[in-house]
């Protein structure tokens, strides 16, 4: 017991004394909590890019040091982790979920710490409300609108396509629904219904039975991959012929493991490319991962770190690297190409939407396939909605 105590104390001391002169960046990850299945590959992507950058000159010769904390998707732990980061002197942060990103909005604004999170809630893209928040993918509403645009363009029949929504009744699920409904009506969809399926659902038959009656042509799902798999399998069981459009967290490479061939023929939205896709940046990822396929979340994490580091490089070119200078630099970023791994990114002082381009993927025979990048106009009235 005493030995264990001594070892623990030694380990703690070692952790405190491993300080260096690098640019410190906080990495808030969910490695053990409810979103860890996607949080871990996302964090791996961030770490991989930073490791690659440090091996290739860092920020004008200075390395970037990541301080990773697993907060298990708990807001209180996220708050403590953030304070730990700021005490360590971070200049920027890679965040994760909606709850923690929102809880930290005012802190990061006060402390001038730019945050790149994987929460794509529309209100976090509005600098008037969240001045230090950035993302590397467009907001949930934009993603949904782009998906609907694609479906409408590919619709060949003379009648209006029928659309239904299935989402969990929580902040993440419900946040883009009003925007999508409005845009769907504008595009000429007929909205025929909406149902709630919980993220932990193991059966969606009752909800799908009511949807079956209204015969939708398309069904939007905004949940997680497991809940989407349940919906797809039950829809197949009930003989529904609709096509599903799944949001960024509702489908990934695991969809086929969970839903089997019930996933075939449906579509997903992504903020980055699929592993192995022919873009310049994929060469680095393939080298780093020794050709071991990674999830699309890994690619998005990689891009998120790349954009943040590009902002740091720009800040360095203009003088000192601080939270404020990184934010100012990012706001001058125009059409930065993350080596093809995601659509080009621009930020503005009054608009933090990285772009309005979304990658559409199709689920075909056990594989995600890139279909096209759908781009919308950067409309002011969509900012934050």
């Amino acid at each position, binding site marked *: 017991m005493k030995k264990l105590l001594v070892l*623990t104390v030694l*380990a*703690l001391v*070692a*952790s405190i004394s*491993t300080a260096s002169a690098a640019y410190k960046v906080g990495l808030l990850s969910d*490695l*053990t*909590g409810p979103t*860890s299945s996607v949080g871990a590959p996302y964090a791996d992507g961030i770490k991989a890019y930073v490791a690659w950058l440090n091996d290739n000159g860092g920020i004008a010769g200075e390395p970037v040091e990541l*301080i*990773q*904390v*697993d907060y*298990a998707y*708990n*807001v*209180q*732990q996220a*708050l*403590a*982790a953030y*304070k*730990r980061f*700021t*005490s360590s002197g971070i200049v920027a942060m890679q965040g994760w979920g*909606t*709850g923690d990103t*929102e*809880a*930290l*909005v*005012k*802190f990061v604004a*006060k402390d001038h710490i730019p945050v790149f999170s994987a929460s794509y*809630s529309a*209100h976090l893209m509005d600098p008037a*409300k969240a001045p230090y928040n950035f993302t590397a993918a467009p907001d949930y509403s934009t993603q949904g609108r782009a998906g609907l645009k694609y479906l409408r363009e590919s619709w060949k029949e003379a009648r209006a396509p029928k659309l239904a929504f299935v989402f969990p*009744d*929580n*902040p*993440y699920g*419900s*946040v883009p629904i009003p925007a999508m409904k409005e845009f769907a009506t504008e595009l000429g969809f007929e909205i025929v219904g909406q149902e709630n399926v919980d993220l932990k659902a193991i059966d969606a038959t009752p909800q799908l039975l009511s949807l079956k009656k209204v015969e939708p042509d398309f069904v939007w799902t905004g949940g997680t991959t497991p809940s989407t798999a349940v919906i797809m399998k039950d829809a197949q069981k009930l003989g529904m012929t609709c096509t599903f459009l799944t949001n960024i967290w509702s489908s990934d490479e695991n969809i086929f493991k969970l839903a089997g061939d019930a996933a075939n023929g449906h579509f997903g939205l992504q903020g980055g490319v699929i592993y192995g896709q022919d873009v310049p940046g994929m060469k680095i990822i393939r080298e780093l991962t020794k050709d071991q396929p990674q999830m699309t979340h890994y690619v998005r994490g990689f891009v998120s770190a790349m954009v943040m580091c590009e902002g740091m490089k720009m800040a360095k070119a203009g003088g000192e690297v601080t939270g404020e200078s990184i934010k100012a630099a990012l706001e001058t970023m125009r059409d930065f190409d993350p080596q093809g791994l995601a659509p080009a990114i621009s930020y503005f002082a009054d608009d933090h939407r990285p772009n309005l381009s979304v990658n559409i993927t199709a689920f075909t025979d056990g594989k995600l396939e890139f279909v096209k990048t759908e781009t919308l106009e950067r409309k002011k009235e969509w900012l934050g909605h």
Partner: protein
Amino acid sequence: MSMHKCGLFYTTYAREDGLFPSKFQKTCLALFFAVLLACPQFLDSYVMSILNLILIAVIGAVSLNLLTGVCGQMSLGHGAFVGVGAYGAAVLSNLGIPFFLALLGGGAVAAMIGMVFGIPSLRLKGIYLAISTLAAQLILEYVFLHAGSLTGGANGLPVDAPEIMGYSFDTDSKIFYLILLVTVLCVLVVTNVIRTRPGRAFVAIRDYHQSAENVGVNLFAFKLQAFGLSSFLAGIAGGLWAHYTMYITPEQFSMGLSISYLAMIIIGGMGSVLGSIFGAIFITLLPEMLNLLTTSLGGIAPDLSAIIVPMKEGVFGLMLVLFLIFEPEGLARKWRLTKAYWKLFPFAY
């Protein structure tokens, strides 16, 4: 087991009834507070934020212990009552009402809602009441999400840092004094309530409701009082949380929060104010300690860290189970035993 120093003779009942009967206790407490008050001078914002989180957790745990540990009314909806207080205080604050009034207002709203959900406690006991309070949790979470005009819905509600007479408590160190003051008041309130007539009625109800009724305790009135006071204090904890984090969303007041408060009072010691404090400290610090450990192991042995990180939640669970097996009466009893050991040393009796 309550032991006082030899030679401590009381000459009045009031002195015997005092919270801190000996000078030694008073000195220790004064020293403790002196150290606590000096903390912001030499601790960084990380440690201060942990202290703030602990203090807010102490209020939540003490209030739940009053309801569950003292009065015997199981509650799985405490997190939601904290949420009601947070939203109440935030809305009032955003309307321009001064901080302390907004805090009290949030507590009052939480008390009213708590009493409404406490009504079934006349008919329901134990696990049945637990499920009925779980229903309160689900209903309130739904309201937080869907009463968008009031709560901000899915987008959440921004709140400003507390401001009193133009002075803004906008750093961890500044707000610490404010939270400490409110926490001390709340702990004193609960400690004293337990020593009053309603407090004794609560204990009677917990021990056996029929006997309590036989000796003239109005079950319904006292159960409602317990729900009301407990929810009021939970609301105060919520109000502090809202002003501290400055942004509240429905996700922050989920089932997980209710369970973590329950874990605090079970680990700390049911029915004990001191136990609630210990439990709040333990449950708040444990994930931080595990994080520090896994991070430091990552520096020394990255391979080992890769194995331990996924086990973190399991280690957390294991600690709880081991506690329940080896110290079912919680940290409060451990504290009493430790004190007794030093008092009796070197004799074991």
